[in-house]
């Protein structure tokens, strides 16, 4: 394999910009060996595209999904799939019954959240459950931002760009500061929705790790200085209330570095 192959493939895949494409086509016209190589590549590509199997989703699985998603979420599981059918299609139906039906949140939280803090408690009271749910939602928002196209709506390391952008779109003003000199360059910000409320999401980088900092107005009765640290689905989460704002720091960075960032950001709240 040569570097030429990379270019030939990119041309084949229509991924070159106009000038690079033109330059390569000129080379192809001048170099028969390169043209032959390109023809081989294309023949292979065409053969794979025409002949390789595209596996279609099995009808039973599709039918199950359609039935599940067309059914009102409040209906009890047993009302949706007859027992016999559930056992006949056990492999297909059971994960959906446990996953999608009424107990969705509870089941998934049990399965997917590793929460050492919660495990040590004798009693998970309502407040703690709600906090766990919020942390879980923050982790979802963080991972979603990493997965989906645009983790950032305003890409700037300039706090004087990011802060006005956010305050124009939110009814509160989050503290925005570039911490590049402390090892946490500000990448930008976006709006996100946590528990139905619009939050500011500041995005910092630390080494190879992305860190989301969610900021929203604190609940009126939230104690100032309240703090919780937990691990949710492999992500470290620090929640902190300060200066009338609720902060939630989420990242796969180690807890010590996440706390360093929290200690740098939260003292600025309310200023």
């Amino acid at each position: 394999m040569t570097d030429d192959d990379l270019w030939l493939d990119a041309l084949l895949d229509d991924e070159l910009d106009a000038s690079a494409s033109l330059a390569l086509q000129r080379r192809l016209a001048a170099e028969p060996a390169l043209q032959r190589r390109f023809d081989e590549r294309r023949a292979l590509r065409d053969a794979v595209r025409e002949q390789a199997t595209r596996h279609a989703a099995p009808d039973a699985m599709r039918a199950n999904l359609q039935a599940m998603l067309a059914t009102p979420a409040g209906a009890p599981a047993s009302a949706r799939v007859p027992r016999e059918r559930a056992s006949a299609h056990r492999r297909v139906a059971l994960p959906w019954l446990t996953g999608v039906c009424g107990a969705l949140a509870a089941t998934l939280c049990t399965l997917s959240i590793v929460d050492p803090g919660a495990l040590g408690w004798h009693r998970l009271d309502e407040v703690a459950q709600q906090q766990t749910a919020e942390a879980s939602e923050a982790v979802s928002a963080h991972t979603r931002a990493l997965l989906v196209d645009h983790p950032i709506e305003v890409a700037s390391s300039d706090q004087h760009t990011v802060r006005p952008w956010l305050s124009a779109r939110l009814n509160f003003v989050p503290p925005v500061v570039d911490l590049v000199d402390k090892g946490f360059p500000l990448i930008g910000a976006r709006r996100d929705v946590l528990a139905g409320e619009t939050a500011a999401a500041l995005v910092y980088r630390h080494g190879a790790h992305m860190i989301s900092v969610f900021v929203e107005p604190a609940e009126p009765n939230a104690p100032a200085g309240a703090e919780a640290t937990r691990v949710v689905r492999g992500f470290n989460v620090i929640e902190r209330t300060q200066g009338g704002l609720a902060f939630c720091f989420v990242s796969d960075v180690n807890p010590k570095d996440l706390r360093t960032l929290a200690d740098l950001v939260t003292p600025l709240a309310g200023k």
Partner: protein
Amino acid sequence: MHEDVQARFAASVLPHLDAAYNLARWLVRDAHDAQDVVQDALVRALRHFDGFRGGDPRPWLMAIVRNAAFAWLGARRPGEVDVPDDELDAALADGAPPSNPEALAIRRAERREIDAAIAALPIAFREAVVLRELEELSYRDIARITDVPIGTVMSRLSRARHLLAVALRPEATRSLA
């Protein structure tokens, strides 16, 4: 889970169910296991769907399926997902470069042979081929889905095509027969 969210989820995701299943099927290489992976992925997707606003749902869903497949393999067949780069390089060095004239014979290779050649690729190359050739996603989308830089997508795809060309050479297909 509100009904309208469920309906929106169904409208966004169900049209891509074949693509989701195809990717899972090629990654785990088993029809039943692929169903498990797709179901796991859709549960995750539904959980995260509240915040998915606009954009193309296909790469978003494919990324979730891909991660679910890797998690599934990591738990059950870790040897298939922990392939160090030098092993990929070794896989590449195994075959001599295909020589020119017979390459066009690849076109006549049978479906069975092409499927077998793709299935035999190391997983990093296999997913690149499936996402590019079968799902016809852009380099950019493939980079996002597989969580690597675009340059890595390009080199993996190029190496994958090289390995396929070697595997599908007429000599190779004859010796298989």
